[in-house]
């Protein structure tokens, strides 16, 4: 079967540099698909939790009882819920200490919410940059493997007087597999990066809006407390 060269045999017979390039690309592709699946699960869960929480928040329940319910039930403990818990816990703590003006109450709560929001955003954006890296560099890595393979296959022609296309064709075909693998790794990574970074941006906007609304509500409560 020595003259029966299929694709996998081309890969097995490739030179060491080209094989290394292919191995790197395969690893990058597997890693980026792993990230794609994990990010999808995480972002969907965060959005669903935010939907549920907003519905509860605006349905007219008392903020203190909502806070108590949420601290006891930790199923949805992510995203918007964490921002709310951080802000309201800080607000309650400052209010219970007493002697704090309305501005200081709200300021403290806002700081706590900003910290929680930044932490949540960091959690959501984690590893997204890896997708961007794979998407932009793996075509070049694949191209490098191809160029190297073509170089060696032309080098082998140097000692031959009558060169035929049949002598270089297998080498070039083998080298082009590296480019194909690079594109295979890059395309899903770019698509997923664009989709997920857009989703993360929208989530950030939503959390930011919620933070502003909550701080205006807290401001009113603080004024009511210090007014009494």
């Amino acid at each position: 079967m020595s003259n029966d060269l299929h694709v996998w045999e081309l890969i097995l017979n490739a030179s060491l540099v080209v094989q290394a390039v292919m191995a790197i690309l395969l690893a990058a592709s597997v890693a980026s698909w792993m990230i794609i699946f994990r990010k999808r699960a995480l972002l969907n869960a965060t959005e669903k939790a935010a939907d549920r929480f907003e519905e509860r928040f605006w349905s007219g329940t008392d903020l203190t009882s909502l806070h108590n319910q949420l601290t006891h039930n930790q199923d949805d403990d992510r995203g918007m819920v964490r921002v709310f818990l951080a802000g309201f816990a800080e607000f309650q703590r400052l209010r219970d200490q007493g002697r704090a003006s309305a501005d200081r109450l709200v300021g403290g709560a806002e700081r706590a919410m900003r910290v929680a929001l930044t932490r949540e955003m960091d959690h959501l954006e984690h590893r997204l940059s890896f997708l961007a890296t794979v998407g932009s560099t793996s075509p070049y890595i694949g191209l490098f493997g191809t160029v190297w393979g073509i170089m060696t296959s032309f080098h082998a022609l140097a000692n031959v007087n009558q060169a035929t296309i049949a002598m270089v064709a297998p080498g070039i075909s083998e080298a082009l597999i590296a480019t194909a693998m690079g594109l295979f790794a890059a395309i899903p990574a770019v698509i997923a990066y664009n989709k997920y970074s857009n989703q993360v941006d929208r989530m950030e906007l939503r959390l930011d809006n919620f933070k502003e609304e909550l701080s205006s509500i807290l401001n009113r409560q603080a004024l009511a407390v210090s007014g009494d």
Partner: protein
Amino acid sequence: MNLQATLWETWEQAKSLGLAVAVHVIAAALIVLGTMDWKPFKPPQITGMTIEAVMVDTQAMIDRRDNALREAEQARQREEARQQRERELAAQRERERVAREEAAAEEAERQRIEAERQRQAELRLEQLRERQERERQEELERQQAELDKIREQRAEVERQRKLEEERLKQLAAKREAEEAAQRQAAAEAEMQRQMAAEQAARRQGQMADLRGQYIGAIQAQVTNNWLRPSTARAGLRCRLRVVQIPGGEIISAGIVGACNGDEATRRSVVAAVERAGALPYRGFEDVFEREIEFTFTYDGD
């Protein structure tokens, strides 16, 4: 809790790794299937041409030697073939003689078997004839029995038919009774449904009543906080929209749609809402809305 979170994280990692590997295995399988019918490459023959150039000199010599060898070999083969043929002819004659003797013996045996078979066949024929006669007799008897049975059945069918007619009459009577009962049941169900609909309407009415009370309470509160400017005239109608948070605190208020007062009156109405501070909330949780619209009215003192 911490251990559980770590376990969960590991499980998530393993799951996504499995999915990623599955994607690649599928892609690899597609590629292999898609390139299955590629023409295989022939290995490049790099040294073929130079060797042919060297071989031109020796070719004639090699050919001559090969020819001599080939002729000697052919002569030897011819002699062997002749001897072989003679041996075969002798063997052939011997075989034919044996075959003739065997054929004679076979013929005698065959005739004996034939006679035996004929005798057997006659015996069987006799038996067959007897059996057929017996069967014909039985068949006659059976037909007679069948005729009797058919007659009986016909009588039975006639009796059944009469019974059936009787039963049909009874059924018709019963169906009429049932239909009457059904009509009555349908009438009752209709009555019950009407009652249920009335009850539902009453419940909705209660909800609407509560909402009406809610709006009324809001209007009363706003009117209490209103400082009437001198330009306000009786018959004032202003549509207001108020955004509130749970608890009744007002976030913003404004005039939407028609308002038949002048600028000062409008300002005074919005100021009245803002002075109210909080709208009624206790007792109205069921009809609470984040944004609520109502009409402010003034018909003179």
